[in-house]
């Protein structure tokens, strides 16, 4: 909402307050003022000029040489390049020395002719040209013939004005009007409001109009018939106020309805009375499929939910949203029906949304209008039409009421509870004063609970707590002190799921990985590189009804595409590689279309892409499977589940079948790790990359409770290595398992693979695996013989199963 300072000052005394000061006070009281801008700052020396002669410039086709009467003894010679300059017109004329937003005007020679000033366009004057009709913006701004020659245009065009731009919250619909804002300013400054009274003269004739309300969604409809209207533009002062408010001036009838709407907050509509067939207005719900062409020239199909204004034959307007073209006020219009009504807020809102409209009227109706303003606005507009269009008001307004309007109501107010709610110690007197300034009427103020009467312009004040807010904001929020809740002390800890996520992040950071966060809204096309079967559950992405863009149409089911895009972006920007991870959610529906909230799984996923860093003593190389598996193992070990974990070949379609593993804790598959399938990697131009993904919700119940240390050993250990030759395909883990099975006693403390070798000295098709054994008994020192026996069992088992031979004896 844009508010003209000068206009506002007609309703409440603003003397001694600057626009910026008022804006600050309003903002502090909850009416946020986004900007305070001078309408056209500092314009001086511009007067109404009458072009008495206009001739072609001798040396320039596009220029005219004009003789302009500016009310002085001598006419001025002014060179003008505007296409619409003509003899007899009045235009704003900047005299030599005048100041315009674009700078100072001097004497200038244009193609050999001296110009003693400048004829101005709307833009040169700083007028809001975007809301002016085309004929007023293409060339000179045309002043009306009534404009007095030589008069200063600054007061004439209201240029010495300020515009306050309000950013209103939806509850303060009252401030969508000069009147509501005047009351607000009145409460802040403690100065009275003076609204212009209107007592239009009405003939004693019958209006010749009937109104029927055929829907409960129009509780009240009032209509005034006016006749003998003159048409043409509205007075300059009215046009300028509309412009300052951001409303397009159209013609004097429409301008009056808009002006009064801005003043009172009550939308009005003027129908051409001759187009209201049979003099009957029927307010009803639209027929399904009913159509109407609205004022903006668009054909619109209506639904039963829409309230229409109609005559017995056709709809002539969409109630509260926009009038119909068929009953539009035209230059030929001499009789109008002026409508001032109340329509159901929710219905108006739905209709506007359905039609993609957000008219000024709709914005006011959907937030609720003040019943007091319905008649007041009608009277005011009638009076203005009489003044401006010489209209005659035919009889009294036609009034149809379905329910008695509530012009006021009472709200209980406990001052003690108000202070307790706010934490303040405001006095009874202060609270009472605030209410009186707001125009509320507190009664029984000697009682613990007051009865406060609220005027209907404050539709938002209904509950006791609403009054607390009124008290708080007018007393000033700086009156609220700082304190801490007087609650009992509570101990707070993270939940196990939150801890698991925090630990996971810390472990992965400790492994040198960088955390990323990607968008969860994605596109089903992102899944294409994953090589998923058609019936894959990953294809069940939950779609949005109205997405904003093609890239973000549905919720992700898989973590890989987001990470892959990050890798792709970074490779394209000169990063040679990286190890990244994301902790986030995937969204798995139980069924589609969605009938209930989906599973939101907590997962983490990681991607190793590009190559490792180049450092002294280590060549840069592509990340490989064991880089990824190493990090996964560190994670599992840190969480204390490493011993229950097994790696099995994975069938994940997005992974390389020979270089990937499912990871199981016990028999629960919690995720997988592996090299991306070359076709998958190619989908994002990634080259070789490693990927891991895990479901934290699956892992959570499998975590061990607490860490219990193993006692320190009392007897020494025997450490011995064995190197064994096996076929290339033999998995190392199988050798370890076989060894564990083979030993007879609980004397094998640990076993791990520390080298794998192929090449010189190793037969083709074979590899040498070196394993380190730590032998220890808990109750005695092992003898060499005991260890040798155990070793032989291991070697025998290997030989039996794989024909393995020890290397180097």
């Amino acid at each position, binding site marked *: 909402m844009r508010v003209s300072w000068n206009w506002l000052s007609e309703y409440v005394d603003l003397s001694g307050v600057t626009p910026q000061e008022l804006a600050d006070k309003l903002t502090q009281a909850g009416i946020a003022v986004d900007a305070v801008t001078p309408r056209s700052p500092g314009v001086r020396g511009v007067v109404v000029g009458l072009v008495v002669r206009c001739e072609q410039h001798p040396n320039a086709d596009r220029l005219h040489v004009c003789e302009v009467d500016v009310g002085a003894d001598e006419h001025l010679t002014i060179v003008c390049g505007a296409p619409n300059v003509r003899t007899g017109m009045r235009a704003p004329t900047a005299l030599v020395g005048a100041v315009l937003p674009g700078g100072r005007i001097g004497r200038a020679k244009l193609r050999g002719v001296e110009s003693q000033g400048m004829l101005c366009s709307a833009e040169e004057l700083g007028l809001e040209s975007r809301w002016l009709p085309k004929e007023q913006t293409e060339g000179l701004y045309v002043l009306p013939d009534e404009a007095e020659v030589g008069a200063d245009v600054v007061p004439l065009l209201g240029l010495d004005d300020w515009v306050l731009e309000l950013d209103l919250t939806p509850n303060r619909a009252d401030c969508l009007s000069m009147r509501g804002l005047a009351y607000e300013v009145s409460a802040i400054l403690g100065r009275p409001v003076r609204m212009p009274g209107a007592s239009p003269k009405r003939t004693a004739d019958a209006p010749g109009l009937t109104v029927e309300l055929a829907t409960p969604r129009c509780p009240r409809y009032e209509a005034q018939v006016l006749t003998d209207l003159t048409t043409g533009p509205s007075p300059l002062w009215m046009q300028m106020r509309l412009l300052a408010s951001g409303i397009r001036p159209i013609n004097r009838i429409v301008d009056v309805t808009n002006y009064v709407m801005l003043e009172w907050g009550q939308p009005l509509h003027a129908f051409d009375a001759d187009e209201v067939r049979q003099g009957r207005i029927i307010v009803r719900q639209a027929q399904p499929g009913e159509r109407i062409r609205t004022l903006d020239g668009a054909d619109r199909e209506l639904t039963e939910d829409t309230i229409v204004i109609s005559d017995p034959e056709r709809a002539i307007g969409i109630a509260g949203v926009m009038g119909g073209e068929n009953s539009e006020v035209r230059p030929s219009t001499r009789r109008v029906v002026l409508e001032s009504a109340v329509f159901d807020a929710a219905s108006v809102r739905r209709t506007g949304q359905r039609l993609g409209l957000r008219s000024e009227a709709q914005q006011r109706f959907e937030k609720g209008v003040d019943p007091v303003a319905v008649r007041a606005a009608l009277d005011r507009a009638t009076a203005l039409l009489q003044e401006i269009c010489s209209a005659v008001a035919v009889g009294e307004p036609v009034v149809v009421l379905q329910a008695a309007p509530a012009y006021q109501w009472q709200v209980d107010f406990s001052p003690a509870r108000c202070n307790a709610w706010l934490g303040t110690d405001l006095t009874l007197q202060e609270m009472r004063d605030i209410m009186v300034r707001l125009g509320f009427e507190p009664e029984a103020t000697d009682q613990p609970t007051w009865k406060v009467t609220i005027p209907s312009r404050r539709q938002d004040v209904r509950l006791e707590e609403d009054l607390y807010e009124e008290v708080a904001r007018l007393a000033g929020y700086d009156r609220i002190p700082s304190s801490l809740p007087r609650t009992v002390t509570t101990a*707070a800890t993270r939940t196990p799921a939150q801890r698991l996520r925090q630990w996971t992040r810390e472990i992965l950071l400790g492994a040198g990985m960088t955390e990323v966060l990607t968008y969860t809204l994605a596109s089903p096309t992102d899944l294409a590189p994953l090589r998923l079967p058609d019936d894959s559950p990953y294809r069940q992405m939950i779609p949005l009804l109205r997405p904003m863009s093609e890239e973000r149409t549905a919720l992700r089911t898989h973590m890989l595409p987001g990470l892959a895009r990050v890798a792709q972006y970074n490779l394209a920007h000169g990063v040679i590689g990286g190890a990244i991870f994301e902790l986030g959610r995937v969204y798995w529906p139980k069924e589609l279309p969605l009938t209930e909230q989906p599973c939101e799984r907590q997962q983490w996923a990681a991607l190793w892409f590009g190559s490792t860093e180049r450092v002294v003593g280590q060549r840069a190389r592509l990340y490989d499977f064991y880089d990824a598996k190493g990090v996964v193992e560190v994670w599992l070990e840190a969480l204390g589940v490493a011993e229950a974990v097994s790696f099995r070949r994975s069938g994940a379609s997005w992974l390389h079948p020979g270089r990937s593993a499912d990871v199981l804790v016990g028999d629960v598959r919690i995720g997988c790790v592996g090299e991306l399938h070359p076709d998958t990697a190619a989908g994002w131009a990634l080259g070789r990359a490693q990927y891991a993904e895990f479901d934290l919700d699956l892992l959570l119940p499998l975590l061990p409770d607490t860490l219990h240390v193993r006692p320190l050993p009392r007897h020494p250990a025997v450490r011995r290595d064995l190197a064994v030759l096996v076929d290339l395909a033999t998995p190392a883990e199988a050798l370890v398992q076989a060894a564990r099975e083979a030993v007879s006693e609980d004397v094998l403390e640990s076993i791990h693979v520390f080298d794998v070798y192929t090449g010189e000295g190793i037969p083709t098709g074979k590899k040498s695996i070196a394993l380190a054994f730590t032998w220890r008994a808990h109750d005695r020192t092992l003898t060499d013989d005991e260890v040798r026996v155990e070793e032989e069992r291991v070697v025998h088992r290997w030989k039996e199963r794989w024909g393995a031979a020890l290397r180097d004896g």
Partner: protein
Amino acid sequence: MRADEIRTELEAWAEVAVRRLGETSDAKSLEAWRVEHLGKRSGLSQFMRQLSALPADERPLVGAWVNRWRDELQARYEARRAELAAAERQVQLERETIDITLPGRPYRRGAMHPLSKVIAEIEEVFLGMGFEIAEGPEVETEHYNFEMLNIPKDHPARDMQDTFYITEDLLLRTHTSPMQVRTMERMRPRTPVKVIVPGRVYRRDEDDATHSHAFTQMEGLVVDEGIRMSDLKGTLEAFAKAVFGPNQRVRLRPSFFPFTEPSAEVDLVCIHCGGNGCRVCKETGWIEILGAGMVHPRVLDGAGYDSRRYSGFAFGLGVERIAMLKYGIDDIRQLYLNDLRLLRQFARVQ
């Protein structure tokens, strides 16, 4: 031979021995010297053997001379040995000298995402004040996202949050506030309710430098008997001091949210200029960081806490905004771009 002859010979021999000791250059030559001069077959032993040929009264005298030279040479030998060892260690140290300006072997610290960093920091502050951390579904129902928060259907307040709908009743939550109601329903009738809710929310917004279709909110809620709006101010002040420094203050400005009454926008002293006014704070000295208020009685009653008995406050802060202010990031999209050249800077502790 006479004693004085032996003495002359002994001294001549010793002079040579000392000179040759000085000529030794390493452990090997030193050892050869030792065998030759102090060993069983050494020159000194020769002199000792000559004692028997002397008259008995001269023997002790000559014996003492020989022994003195033995002690002398032994001492000189030890000194020479230490000298040679030191020289050898010196050579070894020089040989082992490396270029200490080469970079150390890298043990890279990972980098936490700035949003995670900010969330973790705020969580610590509120955990310290006894707030639980709760999370909730991102795919929410109309009921929790709007209805229970006093935002009825077809109400203009819905314009404040343009919504991604999935079905008529299911949507992507537009704020973390539904968790106010879910938490109260879970907790009732226990008090106090003290919870923060970090989480991702969605708005049907065009992405630009200051808007994102997805962003992170941190909701806070306290419900008990006797909770005051001043408690909201004090709690947020404690939070601001913990996160932005001990000189922080907060300022409340009236505002409107359908689920709080009264409602407030909360400003912090501008982090960039300390309140003097700058471009970041549009010369006001304050920056808006969150919305807050007293829980609306309809919300309390709807969630099962009688608003005549209980009161509460709630706030919702924008995590991205705080991260941007704290780290000097001026485009919200950078937080989701994941450019490693930016993210790796967060390997630093702070």
